[in-house]
């Protein structure tokens, strides 16, 4: 029995992991691990000690138990599309879940699906389409990102304005806790009882455990959909239109804004959608619902946009046109990647009435620091995404960019906003947590984390600054039998290992 943690790359641990998942599913060479050093944000590079890729639920549990026995920290990772550095494993074990990609059960009658964490978001919607259903949370990376990753970040997307975020669409989750025990949170057979541990788990950024399967709620396809593109000669006019639409009582399915810099980036890329490149801002408005009322809603929204100063308002003529309009929005980040080698993006949410003021502040900050900022965001819920492309090889530019982003974040906090609406805190925004929460509040988050992971091995160093955690004494929370540091694999794990001739 060891009293100290094992090195992630120790031969003993690697051998044990290989016995569980197979030789080829454990990566140890730096050249193999290179691709896992970043997520969707190019600015961070953290190399894992090793990477392990289980292919089944049983293998996943066995891996987690092996890591628990060795007291080794680990970072769960889906598709690596995150925008907060949350899936970066700095010298620790990267636990890749992308091989768990089965849709386990579709239940159209109850509008539920049970999926493994590696199922790609868009694939789930494709699988449920024949039943007139879809999975509503639609982050821009949905063609690549996984349900497990969406759960970890409580992902949103344009359509969360009307349909809610991931948490509103998860009814149950089977979770492997960091010590290897397995628990089902939530309830697919009625109301949830007791504490909302499922609600605490969704959005916990991999710090509370690993989802083995997720039961999600599916949404009935609307009877009618209309997608409008309105263009404006000023950002202010577009913001006024947003306020007017919301104030009218109409709740669009999505209400997205892109400024001129973003529009030009998109139209110069392979994702060109036909946006007018001389528009100061464009609004992409999607309305959906019963067919009986859709035309009246379109007419109302069009009128409101024109009253606010829209130069033109077009309605998508067919599905292909609609898809093209959405492609421009959803691939906007990718379009910006053509322009500069490095990109930083923020994810603050501000009260909607403060949008015009904050957008003006962002423009002023950009001018002050001599940087170019592209704004693309979920205007309907005030979720901003100021993007700045720059050359990290230019230290002066890099410094100005980071100072500007800090100023933008503070401006958002100052108007009553928050630092992340959907990307998560990860490591990218952890430095802002103390600007948002008091010491007692941060400590409370630490204490909650201690309940799930008293050894702090699951995604360490993310979300809450470590120095914010008071030392916790006297927690009778959790004493797993496995905490006895027994290095002997459990019986079930020995079976898996035996099947590979490694027991």
């Amino acid at each position, binding site marked *: 029995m060891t009293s100290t943690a094992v090195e992630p790359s120790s031969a003993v641990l690697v051998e044990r992991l290989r016995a569980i998942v197979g030789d080829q599913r454990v990566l140890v060479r730096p050249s193999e691990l290179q691709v896992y050093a970043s997520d969707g944000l190019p600015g961070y590079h953290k190399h894992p000690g090793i990477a392990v890729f289980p292919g089944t639920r049983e293998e996943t549990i066995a891996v987690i138990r092996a890591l628990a026995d060795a007291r080794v920290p680990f970072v769960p990772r889906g598709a690596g599309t995150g925008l907060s550095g949350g899936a970066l494993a700095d010298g620790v074990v990267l636990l890749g879940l992308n091989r768990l990609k089965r849709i386990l059960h579709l*239940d159209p*009658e109850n*509008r*539920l699906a049970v999926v493994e964490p590696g199922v790609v978001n868009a694939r789930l919607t494709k699988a449920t389409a024949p039943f007139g259903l879809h999975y509503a949370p639609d982050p821009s990376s949905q063609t690549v990102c996984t349900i497990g990753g969406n759960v970890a*970040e*409580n992902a*949103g997307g344009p359509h969360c304005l009307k349909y*809610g975020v991931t*948490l509103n669409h998860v009814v149950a989750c089977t979770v492997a*806790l960091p010590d290897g025990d397995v*628990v*089902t*949170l939530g309830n697919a*057979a*009625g*109301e949830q*009882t*007791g*504490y*909302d*541990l499922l*609600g*605490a788990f969704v959005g*916990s950024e991999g*710090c509370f455990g690993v989802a083995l399967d997720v039961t999600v709620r599916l949404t009935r396809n*609307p009877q009618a959909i209309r997608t409008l593109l309105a263009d404006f000669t000023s950002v202010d006019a577009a913001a006024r239109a947003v*306020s007017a639409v*919301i*104030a009218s*009582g109409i709740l669009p399915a999505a209400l997205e804004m892109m400024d001129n810099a973003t529009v030009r980036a998109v139209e110069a890329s392979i994702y060109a959608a036909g946006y007018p490149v001389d528009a100061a801002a464009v609004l992409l408005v999607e309305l959906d*619902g*019963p067919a*009986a*009322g859709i035309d009246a*809603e379109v007419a109302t929204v069009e009128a409101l946009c024109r009253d606010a100063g829209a130069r033109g308002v077009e309605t998508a003529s067919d599905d292909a046109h609609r898809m093209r309009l959405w492609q421009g929005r959803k691939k906007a980040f990718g379009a910006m990647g053509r322009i500069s080698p490095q990109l930083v993006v923020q994810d603050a949410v501000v*009260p*909607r*009435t403060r949008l015009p003021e904050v957008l003006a502040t962002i423009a002023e900050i950009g001018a002050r620091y001599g940087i170019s900022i592209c704004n693309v965001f*979920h205007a309907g*819920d*005030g979720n901003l995404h100021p993007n700045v492309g720059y050359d990290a090889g230019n230290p002066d530019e890099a410094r100005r960019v980071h100072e500007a982003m800090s100023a933008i974040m503070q401006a958002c906090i100052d108007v*009553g906003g*928050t*630092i992340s*609406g959907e990307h*998560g*805190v990860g490591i990218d925004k952890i430095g802002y947590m*103390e600007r*948002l*929460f008091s010491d*007692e*509040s941060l*400590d*409370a988050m630490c204490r*909650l984390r*201690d309940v799930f992971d008293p050894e702090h091995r699951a995604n360490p160093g993310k979300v*809450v600054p470590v120095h914010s955690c008071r030392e916790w004494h*006297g*927690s*009778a929370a959790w004493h797993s039998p496995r905490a006895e540091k027994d290095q002997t694999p459990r019986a079930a794990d020995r079976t898996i290992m035996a099947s590979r001739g490694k027991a």
Partner: protein
Amino acid sequence: MSATGSAATGSAATARAGRTVHPAIAGIADRVREARATRAPHRIVGAGTWLDAGQPVAHTGRLEIGAATGITEYVPGDLTLTALAGTTLAELHAATRANGQRLTLDPYGTPRGTLGATLATASAGPAAGAFGTPRDIALGLTMVTGAGDIVSAGGRVVKNVAGFDLVRLATGAWGTLGAIVEASVRLRALPPRDESFVVAVDADDTDAVAATLATLRALPFTFDALALLDAATAHALDLADAAHGALVARAADTGVIVHAMRAALGAAGQVREAAPTLWDQLRTLEPAGCATIRLSHAPSHAVDVWRLACDVARGGAGWAHLAVDRTVARVTLPRRVDESDAAFAARVANLLRITMTDFDGTCIGERLPPGAWDAVPRPRSDSDVLARLATGVRNAFDPARILNRGILGAAGGDR
């Protein structure tokens, strides 16, 4: 409707970094610290409308939240509102309606109930199917933990993933993790039209009920509320010509859509207008001292839930209604005149034990006489691991069990 950005009534002074704490919140925190110092368990009290709910609470004192009242921030243009926890729902409804908006928290019970109690109990009313439960409506909150710490989580914007979700954890925790002292909630715009309808149905005709539920589920509309009432409930609501039960629906949208929704209801039977006060009446139907349980399951089991709810109601001379859109049935069992506590508890417990043996859905006790709680079936998802997590959470926030000790039983780490 007016939704212009008017001035807030004052800053939301919560325990955020660098901001001052509202005196009412500071006062509550002081009282909790005093209680902790003497290890004196306290019962959290808002307006006192929930004192008969939950499991028996062992306490030597009361933590009064009711005086912490008032809207601290309301910007109609943002469709968000922040208020101290002792603010009544009636006050919040009046303030939002004055701005052409609504707070879609409509728990069963009197509107004298407080915001804090509604969130602490996560009490969902008829509007929950359309607009979400209290856990979906709360955007942020401040609570005083059992350790006397003032903890804030979430915020006042409509989308927020900063930090671990203590809002979700505290909502529905029945005060066992912290006394909610302030909360931010999301609002909705008032619809142009708001009409209610009733369709007389035979609530005991299982086949007809199944067909009606299937038809309703396939409709492309979202009703603000949709409920199936047994005969006793329909009678209590004075619904004429609904001797065998009724389907009641609230359609709130543009005139065109409301008209279409009314037409769609026709598949269930003859549609008549219902008084808009119907929903207030439904929510305040339950008499003091009654027992209330909730039965729920997946929609495919809606008929089973309904049948069981009716059986229990009949067995206890009570009444039942089903939130069709959530597949949650509410069963109320009145206490007989001059019935002792012990006799009532024994009768309810016996009824539950007899009726629940084959039910594989979820049964939740909301109000039960002491002594009947053990008859509520344990959730299927119960496990030792879950129990240890629940105990751990409780220990993390209220290790000395100062707040509402016992109210959740084992689910709150109290047994």
